């Protein structure tokens, strides 16, 4: 079954610092923006929930039709606010992992 997934790392102030469309479904431009919309909207829920739980992993925190949003909340003390993740090595790793599990 073809699956589609979008992986985004968001820093504070809602700034996406890393985006990757992964999954075996063929890539579509309109899917990409739909994913962005859903993930962006889910931040509302995450923002709410993050302060009410100790869990780092918020499974199925939000959903839109059959698309489910799950979130990990981390804090990287070495991160320079505002900078994007541009490492191609990281990108390759993410996509390789996605291929294995999706």
């Amino acid at each position, binding site marked *: 079954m073809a699956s589609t997934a979008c992986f985004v790392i968001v820093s504070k102030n809602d*700034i996406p610092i890393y985006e990757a469309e992964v999954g075996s479904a063929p890539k579509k431009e309109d899917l990409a*923006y739909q994913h*962005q919309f859903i993930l962006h909207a889910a931040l509302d829920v995450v923002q*709410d929930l993050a302060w009410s739980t100790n869990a780092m992993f918020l499974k199925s925190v939000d959903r839109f039709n059959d698309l489910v949003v799950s979130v990990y909340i981390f804090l990287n003390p070495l991160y320079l606010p505002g900078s994007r993740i541009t490492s191609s090595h990281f990108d390759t790793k993410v996509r390789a992992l996605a291929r294995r599990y999706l």
Partner: protein
Amino acid sequence: MDPLRSYLGRLLLEEITPVVMVLTTPLAEAACRKSGLSVVDMLSPFSLFKKIDVPVRTASDQPYRLQMFKIRMVYASDVRKQDHEVADERIKPVVSEANESALPDLLSDPPQLEDVLSKPEAELCPLWIKKFNRALMRTLSFSEHETFDHPVACLLVVSSKDNEPISKFVDLFNTNQLPSLLNEGIMDPQILKHYVILHDQQDGPQEKAMNILAEMKSTLGLNDCKLLCINSSTEADGVDAENSWLPYKSYGLHNQEGSCWLNTDDLNEIKDFMQDLASNHIIPYMEQKIRVLNQQQEMSGLCYFMLDQSRKDAEYCMDSAFSTYLRIGSSGQRNATRCGLWWAEMLKTRGQYREASSVYYRVSNEEPSLHSAVLLEQAACCYLLSKPPMLRKYGFHLVLAGNSYYISDQKQHAVRTYRNALFVYKQHPWSYINDHVHFNVGRWYGVLGIFDVAIKHLLESMGKKFDVYKLQLPVINMPSLRVIYEDHRTYASEADVNVSESIWQELEEEMIPSSSVVRTNWLEKSPDLRKYKDSCVCVVGEPVKVSIELRNPLQIPVAVSCISLICQHSTSLDASENSVLTTGAGEDIASTKPAISTFEDDGNNFTVSKLDIVLQGSETRSGLPKLTGCIDHLPTNVFAGDLRLLKLNLRNHSEYAVKVYVVIHVDNTHVHGPWIMVDMSKNIKMKISHPRFIIPDDLSKVDLEFPQCLRKHGQSEINTVSTKRTQEDSKVLLFSFSQDIKIQGGATFSCPIWFHAATPGNFSLYISLYYEMESPSDMTYRTLRMHYNIEIFPSLDVSFSIRMCSSRLQEYIVRMDVLNRTPSESFVLNQLSCNDSKWAISTLPLCGSVSSVETVPANQAVSCFFKIKDLGTNSCKETENSSCTSDMLLSRDGGTEEFDISRSPITDFHYQERYQQGRLAKGPCDLLDFILISKAVGGNHSKSEADIQLLSHHVCHCSALDQSPVWWFMEGPRTVIHDFSKSYCEANIQLVIHNSGQHNISVRVVTFDSVPDKSQTVNVLDSNSNQSGWYDVSLENDIKAISTAKGTHYQKQPSESIPPYVWCSLSCAQVDLKPDTSAKVPLKVCIFMPGTYNFSNYQLHWKVHSSAVGQVDENERSGGGQGHPFYVTVLQDAQ
């Protein structure tokens, strides 16, 4: 809780109160019609009982005191199921109407976060949305499985005028007029029936109706019959009627026809009737029925809400009802929707907005796009209203709603929702979202015809991709704004204004007085200058030009019109003290016609427009004199060497006379020659920079004919020019002219100017003209600035190689190489001249002319040989011949006269060339300069004399290849006839040695019989070859060729192992030579057999003896040379 306080409560009160079905006869209707009402209209206002206070028992036998009660009166004909399509059609106008009204709002700015959060709920959820919700719910009225609208009672109304009223009652309920639902048994036909006899008081006394009532009571039941009397008012529109109606107006009772026969008594009677109907009949009936009705799940949820208890239960009920409806399938879909709406309203009333929005979202999934759009919008509103506001969800759902709106063709709504979401995504780094929102908003604005906003949004979406942001059409290039005015500086053309001011200032230095006002002492400041120092000055009557560039960045043309310049008049002149220039003299809009010139850029097809708006001064006063000027026929591209006569034309446009100074400046970054100050008269000076290109001629020679004026006319004029050069070494040349230049008002003045394209390249020619006013004014002088760009192409490369003549003293052999570097032009070589008359130039003895090479075609090179003789040395004076001149005609073109190179302007240009070339290459010993004059023929030989292009090439500082202070050559018989049978032959020859240097020289002559060492020869040769005089590096190959040619000459000899001759008597001789003296060394050669012999087996070594040895170059202090070839032919005497 008061149901009227919440929206849902009001909704419930209006929508799901018990329904009473009304059946009437036409006569009963007619009676009510008199007051402009229907029966239902008349009864409805009295169907709300605010304080009915009736105790009831609920389904679970709980006693409950009913506080408020309402019944809905509906005609039986309306009790039917609506068609789905018809129902949907009814909803659409609600949305469309709002669609139209949304348009004006779209023109305003999109809402910001603060605006949205501060808005009350009512504004966020506009009225039309509530209308829509209600309409959506009503589509379900009287449908299958629908219990809210099932009539709980039936009211049968018969008029007292009807015949047989009793049977009419029976007919009313039995006819097929009854709703199909009742007939089909879906609704309970055994409902409570209430019979009313309606009596119109105007139709007669009440007795008849009373009788009927009595009859009804006996037939239809005692309690279920009532008499209702109306229209008891004696006159239409009774005075008290108005007042009595007032309390009920709010319930929708509107007297439409203006006449009302109902009086207060009637109204009270109706009221009483209704109260009786409700409390005594309907409520008890419903009490019984409630056990049947409460099977609906949905209903119990609402009941919980109404009871304001047990929230969880209510929610649970709604949830299960909703999913049950969905499970049922398509038939229950609309019920699910309504259930959802109730549910959402319920949640909203409790402040559970977040839950409400998800309910809305769930509902929207089940509805067609139009409905879902409205529902989604409501969901978005709920997210906004939730605490804290969930803005991202709000934006997302608005975008979803917008999409649905767009699909259902509600573009205004679509734009509105997207616009409302804009602030959420403002300054958003989520690229896809940003692009999507802006692109769609832009696109839909475009569809709506609001193009400016559309472009703004579309650009926003493209902004990051294409880096075009906030596009203005046309683009106004503000840095290009220039205000061109002419104070004391005037310009010949507009392009000259763009030249940097510093260039002009450098040019006009020394020419313009530093201060035009003479101060009496150093403390006094010139008031006039101070006054105008910080403000721009322009002369009355002269235009001030404003130039601004408008650019069209699009691929399509844009029409630009109605450009106006707004000017503010300021009366304050004291700008230095008062920073505010405008003192409120009002604005004048200059309605001027701009001169538009359009340029087409080939590359991008851009249309560039430049506007010059000319403001005419409103005041006319006599202005200052102004000169305009230009150089006639100044070429933009010429061949190097081009020499031509031009005219500088000056015109005085005013009536005042001016005095003129001219400054000419040629700019080339690496060429900076001297300045030439031309003193035109005692008061008028002309200063020239870089006269390499331009030299002004005598003003008296305005009518010069070119090129005749350059020709030699006689010996008398030759030396006149030399007096012009007063200081050879100084960088300033002074020319004297006899008359003042004064250009009268309106007059034109021409000044001859010589132009010489000295060297290839691009040059900017700056000419500044200084003139003074004769009439006293604020401005004592003005300058006219002219600027020309000239491109000079390479034409002929001329180079010379000079070698000392080996057979004659003080003579040189010259090889001239001319290379035509033009692709198509041919040149005729006309004349070759030396710069000094001490040189005589002539052809080689054996070739009388060089006519064979007179034309140099394009891309060809020619070489020709001739000799030059130094006439200046004393020792050779005797050979001087009057026929020897420093000029040589190369062309025999129909008796052309020679050009006089010793006259202006050629000699002036030559001086400049000499100076310039001397700077580039400073040889230690330079002999002479050559001037080659040629004509361009351009393939067309039949050019008339007038438009001949004359070229003069100046090659300066030429020196001989093998310059040495010692000249030597053999003298002797060239042919010897000897009888070898008798003895060997002895030939007497002598070696003539001449010292042309400045010092004493001792020369040693060594003869040897064996062939000299080859390598030694070459060394000697190399040490003597002096190439420093050559300025053109490209010719080095040619020089090498000459060297190797000579080398091979020596190489031939070693093949003869033993020379066939021997030197006699002398193997070594030494002579001392004083400067400029000659000595002869006699030599004798023994020859053993006839043949031709080259007596060159000797060497010269010299040493310079000087008191000032240090001054002599090390290379020249001593040296040597191989013997020159000297061929002698020895013949056998025949006798």
